[in-house]
């Protein structure tokens, strides 16, 4: 049996508010927290099956035909077991949700750093030494590596025009026409991608660092030429993903191929230098923003044109304009995405693909318009909140931008701000504040989960992952709430394709999708319990392991009796997606110091006010927002993958050269949630939160830089050299 739900319309019951356990919305500890603190949560490279051997990926040093002259010599090196040059080795990581990973071959390198071989040895050290010894020769070809140097594709479905933008620009009392750039970026998850593969002659079992197992299983099966039933993937703990682990990557296929060839368990851990090359990165972007408004600041024209890049044949293009379709309305509009085909490492989904860079830049441009019109940036945004989706004309399911702008503004003390730039100085430092709005599409995706109730102990199972977000604890809370159990009586098992297929972690849809599936599984059990009691499910109260109906109160365990109850839930998106526009909203505020001598920028404080549906656990939700805001600091100030101009290779492929923010870069971060119960978000009214807080956060910092020192930067990140150039 299964309780299935297709989200076609609003749910106004708000059942979670009428249940008795009262664990939703509270700061419950993560069950996996202590395991991680104590090192007992085993990540992909932390299991050691009997006979484990080690594989090291070997990269292509150039672009062109690949050959390995000394293959046999390396095979004969001490402790070396194999040099795998199998055509199945993955060239490009699978895109998120690809569900397939066709053979791409290893005879041609499309980008510098592409894996072209795997060296397997008895020890990690021997494998690594042999990998260095393997000579990879490239019969080089000329390949474009600069997105500005090729004629980009302009896919028809990436163009949306309305009215006459050029005319609107000409006739408007105020307009801006500006070009911004954002840098090539890496997910830079703390856990490098890793896989441990075991082949028993029938089933390939892989412990991976992966985000979406139901797709990953099909991808790996496709890659290996096995039916999916003969592939099992385990990923109970994942040390951060940020999109880079959505699809399988080179380590997975290489480990699996080697394990099957050698009949030994094989572990492949990507070196940090590999992580920067063989997994998808965030495309660099060039974005032209055109805005026109009337004397009251109401937009009459809106143009957003973005240039992004990817490898030839890859289907993903950073969806920079995703929020530009609905964030603001203008009668005259021109949105277009251009795609350059270049031979840098593949691009793909990285934390809030689209809005992370699109909203960030757009919100900086809106600030320019605010300065030009002399209208307060918050007021300007308030005047431009659309009544309905400007793209399709459907209503918004819920729209809390105004509430977050006002909430954040009050808490930050925005009204005390002198709008004139370059007014506040402390020693060498110009001090300023800035703000930006946050927009992110909200999604629900198909998900399944199972709950087994045995006595008064429940077990939740799904192949959903917890990549550090808090999946374990929120599913524990949801199951505890609906079954009336203390959270300690709920065990959550995730990250195993033997369990029902959850949504996977991506697109911020995990909590709403898999969380709803858990809810439905619990509801199915509630109904079965009610049937046993002879009442309607809504008439009984479940709390602290007791079932109350009328004046009758029995221990849940007694009602369950000897047999176990099992519930299965399945959710999928339905017509709701066409009937309403659904998104999450927020407001970012930042105070920065800009050093007038050195051009260094330091963020002094940040505040975010967000509305993202029902908050299941304020602690894990806040933690997600901290992460997004810190990403904003990185995007605005420090993070940039440098590609060599000659062959496109990633020059700074380690943490000494690729600067993620360190503790000293991160000031106190204040996070607030504005209450929202969006009826269209399913029975739990839960919406995505993970990615919202990155969208626009870097824009608030850029706007604060302008307010501080009067210089407008348009290239992310604002490194000291760029700030100095803008200052002078």
């Amino acid at each position, binding site marked *: 049996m299964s309780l299935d739900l297709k989200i076609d319309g609003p749910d106004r019951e708000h059942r979670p508010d009428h249940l008795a356990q009262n664990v939703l919305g509270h700061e419950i500890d993560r069950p996996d927290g202590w395991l991680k603190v104590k090192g007992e949560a085993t990540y992909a490279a932390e299991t050691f099956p009997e006979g484990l051997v080690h594989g090291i990926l070997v*990269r292509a*040093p150039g672009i062109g035909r690949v050959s390995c002259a000394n293959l046999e010599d390396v095979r004969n090196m001490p402790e070396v077991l194999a040099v795998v040059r199998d055509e199945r080795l993955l060239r490009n990581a699978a895109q998120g949700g690809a569900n397939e990973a066709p053979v791409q071959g290893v005879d041609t390198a499309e980008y*510098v750093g592409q894996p072209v071989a795997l060296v397997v040895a008895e020890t990690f*050290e021997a494998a*690594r*030494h042999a990998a*260095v010894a393997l000579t990879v020769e490239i019969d080089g070809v000329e390949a474009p590596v600069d997105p500005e140097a090729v004629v980009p594709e302009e896919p028809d479905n990436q163009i949306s025009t309305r009215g006459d933008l050029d005319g609107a620009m000409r006739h408007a009392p105020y307009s801006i026409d500006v070009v911004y750039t954002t840098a090539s970026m890496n997910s830079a998850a703390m856990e490098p991608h890793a896989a441990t593969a075991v082949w028993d002659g029938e089933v390939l079992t892989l412990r991976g660092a992966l985000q979406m197992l139901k797709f990953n299983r099909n991808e790996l099966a496709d890659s290996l030429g096995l039916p999916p039933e003969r592939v099992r993937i385990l990923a109970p703990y994942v040390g951060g993903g940020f999109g880079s682990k959505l699809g399988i990557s080179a380590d997975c296929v290489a480990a699996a191929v080697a394990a099957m060839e050698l009949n030994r368990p094989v572990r492949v851990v990507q070196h940090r230098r590999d992580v920067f090359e063989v997994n998808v990165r965030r495309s660099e972007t060039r974005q032209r923003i055109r805005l026109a408004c009337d004397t009251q600041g109401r937009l009459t024209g809106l143009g957003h044109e973005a240039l992004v890049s990817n490898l030839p044949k890859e289907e993903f293009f950073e969806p920079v304009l995703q929020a530009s379709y609905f964030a603001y309305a203008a009668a005259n509009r021109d949105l277009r995405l251009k795609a350059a085909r270049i031979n840098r490492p593949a691009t793909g989904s990285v934390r809030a693909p689209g809005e992370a860079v699109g909203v960030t830049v757009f919100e900086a441009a809106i600030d320019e318009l605010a300065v030009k019109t002399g209208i307060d940036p918050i007021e300007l945004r308030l005047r431009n909140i659309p009544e309905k989706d400007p793209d399709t004309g459907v209503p918004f399911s819920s729209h809390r931008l105004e509430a977050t702008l006002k909430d954040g503004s009050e808490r930050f003390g925005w009204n005390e701000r002198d709008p004139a730039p370059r007014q506040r100085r402390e020693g*060498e430092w110009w001090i300023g504040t800035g703000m930006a709005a946050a927009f992110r599409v909200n999604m629900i995706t198909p998900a399944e989960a199972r709950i087994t109730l045995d006595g008064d102990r429940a077990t939740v199972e799904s192949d959903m992952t917890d990549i550090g977000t808090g999946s374990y604890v929120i599913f524990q809370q949801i199951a505890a709430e609906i079954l009336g159990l203390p959270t300690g009586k709920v065990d959550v098992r995730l990250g195993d394709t033997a369990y029902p297929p959850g949504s996977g972690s991506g697109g911020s849809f995990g909590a709403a999708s898999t969380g709803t599936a858990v809810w439905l599984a619990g509801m199915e059990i509630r109904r079965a319990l009610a049937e046993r009691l002879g009442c309607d499910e809504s008439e009984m109260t479940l709390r602290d392991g007791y079932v109350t109906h009328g004046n009758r109160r029995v221990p849940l365990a007694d009602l369950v009796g000897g047999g176990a109850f099992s519930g299965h839930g399945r959710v999928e998106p339905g017509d709701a997606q066409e009937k309403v526009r659904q998104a999450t909203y927020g407001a970012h505020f930042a105070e920065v110091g800009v050093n007038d*001598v*050195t*051009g*260094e920028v*330091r963020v002094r404080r940040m505040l975010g006010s967000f509305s993202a549906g029902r908050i299941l656990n304020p602690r894990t939700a806040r933690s997600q927002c901290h992460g997004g805001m810190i990403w904003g600091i990185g995007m605005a*100030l*420090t993070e940039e993958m*440098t*590609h*060599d*101009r*000659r062959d496109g290779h990633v*020059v*700074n*492929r*380690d943490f*000494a*050269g690729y*600067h993620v*923010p*360190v*503790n*000293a*870069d991160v000031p106190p971060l204040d996070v607030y949630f504005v209450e929202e119960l969006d009826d269209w978000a399913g029975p739990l009214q839960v919406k995505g939160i993970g990615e919202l807080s990155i969208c626009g956060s870097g824009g608030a910092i850029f706007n604060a830089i302008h307010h501080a020192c009067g210089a407008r930067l348009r290239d992310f990140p604002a*490194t*000291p*050299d760029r700030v*100095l*150039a803008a200052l*002078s």
Partner: protein
Amino acid sequence: MRPFEYQRPTTTDSALAAIAPGAAFIAGGTNLIDLMKLEVMAPDTVIDISRLGMDGIEEDDGGVRIGATVTNSDLAADRRVRRDYPVLSRALLAGASGQLRNKATTGGNLLQKTRCPYFYDTDTPCNKREPGTGCAAIGGEQRNHAILGTSEHCVALHPSDMAVAMRALDAVVEIRGAGGETREIDLEKFYLLPEDRPQDETVLEPGELIAAARLPAPKGTRQVYRKVRDRASYAFALVSIGAVLEMEAGRISHAAVAFGGIGVKPWRDGAVDDLLTGEEPSEGLFEQAGEVLMRDARPSDGTEFKVGLTQRLLKAVLTEATQ
């Protein structure tokens, strides 16, 4: 990593006796181990010098003698250093991270390799790593690269913060030779310019070992260290300046200004010090110092900004030191 032999002698003499072509000394290993993993360096023998008793900081004729294996953390925290050589303490604390400073040593810091990314990438040519293959940084992506002292064969930067302060403090390097003899050389003369042999970085002869760094009595009480970097901590200097000055009757009586982030070695320019010495501090003087410093600068498109940035920082540092 290439298989290697590990030795841990207990006396300096036995360490010196063990060193042979293909062998390398190791102390904290914070740089060497990374390089060995990548096989940028591949010694067949590694001789651990961390137990030779070279980890003391002693009074030395009005100055201090810092043993080669004194860690960066211990040196930065030393009471005499903090009192008499605050520029050194600040430089040390501006470098790396707490964990690295706990391991990294004084001698190792002086000898640390460039952070030029092409030097670490064995798939690209590098005259320092493999003499004669060419320089990938020239014509490539430069940021943490030198603009002073470069040659057409190499633009690699010396990344140390500590050595910049030591240059301003007129440090002397104490070297033990294979035969047990000791020689001393000014830090100024310790480093070589790359010219056409970028693989030769110092005057150390094969088999020689740094025993200590000596600092003479401080010649100036006005000491400043400032470092500009891409993030607030754990980043190499875009530009750093260590300045040791003294003032008498409103004039600069001693000036020693050293620079990081711009030179192929910890940089100091006698012409800058001479220009400042004997003069009354003024904005014009400091600007002139910046012009003199950069008279032979050869920046690339990625390092062009360092010229102006250094000059701005120099003005700020000298202003602070003379106020």
